[in-house]
């Protein structure tokens, strides 16, 4: 056994590389087949390469409709999550009340529950309440898990924020609203932004909960799912997949950069 820095055994290195390939090779294939000239089946290697599917995808109104729907749902669900998640975080982090821990768990639960369970539960609840499935039921479904990520980010930041910051603001003449606006919000901002971006990414590529809470609406991931059974113009689906990956990956990357090293932002500046 060697203990120097580059000293992982060769077999361990190989296993790690194999693991990474297993995780990411399928993704590379998705990207690859967005450029293939063969439109009916996935041949390997592709017989030829073309960019024409990008223009085909661009021209298709059904893709645009699905894209706009997904975008709208993600934006509204994220907006609702930011408001509700911040309020919940403020309640849990700032005050003590009976059942606080239980409430905290209940807020986080939707992200731990299988999407199928959340989906079925929501669907039957909407049924019982005779709420017709619509755009808004999808938003509600998405909000259940979007709230969680915002809440988690906000609560972590609030716990690291010294309570005397708010007292200092009150002490210096600011009322509660001014304190919220000038001290609390700027301190929470990056956490909320990060939480919001994660929420957006989660909502944008969500399939399971959406299938249960949607009526006739087709979000982009649902459109992709239905597209898979169709034998014609398969690479268009891959083109869309490439864009979905980019649209969801960028916010997650940005969220990571926003919360990185935030200890120095929210703490006492040590």
């Amino acid at each position, binding site marked *: 056994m060697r203990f120097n820095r580059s000293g992982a055994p060769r077999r361990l290195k190989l296993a790690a590389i194999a693991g990474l390939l297993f995780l990411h090779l399928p993704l590379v294939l998705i990207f690859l087949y967005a450029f293939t000239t063969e439109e009916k089946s996935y041949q390997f290697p592709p017989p030829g390469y073309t960019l024409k599917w990008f223009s085909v995808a661009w021209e298709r109104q059904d893709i645009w409709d699905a894209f706009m729907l997904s975008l709208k749902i993600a934006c509204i669900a994220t907006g609702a999550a930011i408001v509700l998640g911040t309020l919940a975080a403020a309640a849990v982090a700032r005050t003590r009340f009976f059942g606080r821990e239980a409430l905290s768990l209940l807020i986080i639960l939707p992200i731990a529950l299988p999407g199928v369970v959340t989906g079925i539960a929501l669907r039957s609840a909407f049924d019982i309440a005779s709420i017709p499935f619509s755009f808004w039921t999808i938003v509600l479904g998405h909000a259940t898990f979007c709230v969680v990520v915002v809440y988690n980010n906000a609560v972590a930041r609030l716990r690291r924020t010294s309570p*005397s910051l708010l007292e*200092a603001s*009150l002490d*210096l003449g600011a009322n509660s609203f001014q304190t919220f606006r000038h001290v609390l919000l700027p301190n929470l901002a990056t956490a909320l932004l990060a939480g919001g971006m994660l929420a957006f990414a989660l909502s944008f590529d969500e399939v399971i909960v959406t299938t249960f809470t949607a009526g006739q609406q087709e979000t982009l991931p649902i459109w992709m799912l239905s597209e898979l059974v169709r034998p014609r113009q398969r690479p268009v689906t891959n083109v869309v997949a490439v864009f979905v990956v980019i649209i969801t990956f960028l916010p997650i990357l940005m969220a990571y950069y926003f919360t990185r090293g935030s200890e120095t*932002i929210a703490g006492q*500046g040590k």
Partner: protein
Amino acid sequence: MQQKTVFISMPETTRQVSPSREASSPVAVSLAGVSRHFDAVKAVDKVDLTVHEGEFFGMLGPSGSGKTTCLRLVAGFEQPTAGNIIIFGERVDGVPPYRRSVNTVFQDYALFPHMNVVDNVAYGLMIRGVGKKERRRQAEEMLELVRLSEFVHREPGQLSGGQRQRVALARALINRPKVLLLDEPLGALDLKLREQMQVELKSLQRELGITFVFVTHDQGEALSMSDRVAVFNEGRVVQVGSPVDIYERPETRFVADFVGSSNILEPAFCERIGAPSGLWSLRPEKIRLVPEGLTDEADTITVTGEVRHVQYQGATRRCVLAVKGAELALAVPAVGVEPVVGRMAHARWHLDDMHGMKHV
């Protein structure tokens, strides 16, 4: 050893006003029967205090003695469960912190991490709607006062503990408070800086003429900075007085013990050594070691005992003498009779240095 028939007066229990501050000077803050109970916990219990205008007032006590809660009551972060607080003639029941003419320097400084130094200092002015140019000018002026001019554009995270504290001080003072509250202002600083800041705070207070009320658990800090000190224990004020009063004439066993270490002479012990009966406190540095066979002096008590411990402390030696079933702590100067562990030594003190305490 001979008995002296000397009358030693018990200190008056109402030594509320120090000689340096006449009772006629206007009252800045007064607490009358103020209590703050958290369910069964009596954080502050029936406290009466009067702080005069322009005074540097110390609140001293061990942690959990209620001194910080008392400060927070004056600041308005806590509301009393009983009693009245009056700040410059105005009853402040239910008045929120942002409408009180007091400002606070927090123990952790509580600088806003998303603002630079000058914006931190100008915060109070910004809230009051002072224009950007004007508030910057005033903030820079205030930073000059605390000698931080070159750090105007730094972020709080880039400052040392001492610098952060100066920013907190400037931020509180820019609002021209009538009373400045300081919560353990020097607690987080190292010894050297602490001593320097003690002097600076003191001169700043004299310069500005603002009433300062500060909380500390450090008796040295309380004694060296305050015009008057209130000693807290278990939510109550046990003694108020000038540092000299508190140190030289502790009224209770707790004060004698907490403010510097004191010998407490029990009535039974006094009887055995031929001292006037009573419960007395006696400061270690008031006891001298005398050579054997030295003639008796008037109005003194001399005892003989075995030296138990000697601890070298530079300028003085702390030593413990076993005398007739009790132990006496002494601080003896480096010159004079040298105590040797295991040998007998003769200790002498003046009757005036014994101070009567309440039997509590």
